[in-house]
């Protein structure tokens, strides 16, 4: 499959690979996907007291597009407010990486992952829970 240069760059030099302590109150964790489907994304955000994402980390089991999508979204959410990060659409990811049609689900998974991480953070911090996308 022919992939875009941006996608290959994110795959070969993924940004923000790693884990944070999921028990810390400032950390929100999203774990989406399923091993049987061939992709699982773990996305974590560290949020400042005034609601800004100061750091983001990911680990992904999945194809090159899934790895690139998660790498890209960790770059995008850093410095954003929770609302801004939560409004990132999968189509923006798909467009940026020029994902082929059969790989669109990878970008959907990345959108789900950030939403799940935000929801986890809000739950932990007693804020109104937002529905994580299915």
């Amino acid at each position, binding site marked *: 499959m022919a992939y875009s240069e941006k996608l290959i760059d994110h795959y070969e030099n993924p940004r923000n690979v790693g884990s944070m302590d999921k028990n810390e109150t400032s950390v929100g964790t999203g774990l989406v996907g*399923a091993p*049987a489907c*061939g*992709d699982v994304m773990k996305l974590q955000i560290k949020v400042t007291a005034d609601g800004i994402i100061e750091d983001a980390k990911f680990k*992904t*089991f999945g*194809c*090159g597009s*899934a790895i690139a999508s998660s790498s890209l979204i960790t770059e995008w959410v850093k410095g954003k407010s929770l609302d801004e990060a939560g409004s990132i659409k999968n189509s923006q990811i798909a467009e940026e990486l020029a994902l082929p049609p059969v790989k669109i689900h990878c970008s959907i*998974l990345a959108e789900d992952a950030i939403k799940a991480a935000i929801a986890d953070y809000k739950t932990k911090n007693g804020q109104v829970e937002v529905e994580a996308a299915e």
Partner: protein
Amino acid sequence: MNELKAKPIYLDYQATTPTDPRVVETMLPYFTEKFGNPHSRNHSFGWEAEDAVEVARDQVAKIIGASSKEIIFTSGATESNNLALKGVMKFYGKKKPHLITVVTEHKCVLDSARHLEQEGFKVTYLGVKDNGLIDLEQLKAAITDETAIVSVMAVNNEIGVIQPLKEIGEICRERGVFFHTDCAQAVGKIPLDVDEMKIDLMSISGHKIYGPKGIGALYVRRRPRVRVIAQITGGGQERGMRSGTLPTPLIVGLGKACDIAMNEMAEENARIMELRDYTMKRFRDRLADIYLNGDETQRVAGNLNVSFAYVEGESLLMDIKNIAVSSGSACTSASLEPSYVLRALGVDEELAHTSLRIGIGRYTTREELDQAIDSICVAVERLREMSPLWEMAQEGIDIKSIEWAEH
């Protein structure tokens, strides 16, 4: 990475093989000076081509212990499988409308069976044990008075396991049922004898055995006689079973490929098997949580199918892009389904996504394998560092205990 400039390493011998230069050399005159139509009966150009075809027919027959009169040339194993199944069912199907095959067969067998089902024939698909082999008792139980033919492949294209042909042949002969076997991956790789194994029809491929693409053969037993209804009609060539002008150069190539394979199989297998065992040992020495798919010993020399747990197959292929292997991962298939062969073995879906098929063949060197093993290990280690499943496994979390949202 940065391996694009490096010479690519071919480890996908089950997909296809390069044509042996000795085969090409034998073929060449039949494109130019010896270009006659083997069916031209009234001049020397035709006779010359016909002679060459008959030499090749004999070479193909020899490697499977058949008579040359029992070899029908086709365009490849796909056509042979179609002709064997559809041809037999359409001839015998009125009285015996039942066909038995196996869930791990090649798509062209399964798809032929599906088409026959749509036409009203009955098909039984046998499952396999977790080592990829069929259960002979299940086969016995599946045969009825209405069964016309049993079709079981000799060597599986994905996992390389060798089915017990002789035992299957015995069972079929005893019950008066024809035995067809797809030997695309078996000819030249394991010893075959149609009489000893009681095989009635056998599909053969050229390009899997260092011959050219676009040529294959179907063995059709003469005693007791097996009848097939032609699927391609016309001038009535190949004893009416397959019309069309015979492609002399391709046939000469297939013959030569069989001839070479017959003479060199024992030596070549020993060398390839050593390379395969060496490769598996090096993987096992360096990496934890890897699994060989398919029976460890009932297996053709050149096939390794390995699951590298916690690393998805397509991402692994992307990382080792100068190495040509294939994967059972969903992401490498158009259907987005993981390998149906691995699933039939009961391999967990998540492990099916992590499998690589490494095919070792005539031109594979130890140096190439060393390079490939290193690249694969480095890639697996890198991707595991990136894998949340690997992280969970290291923390002692059973990934099966988590309720995943299937999507």
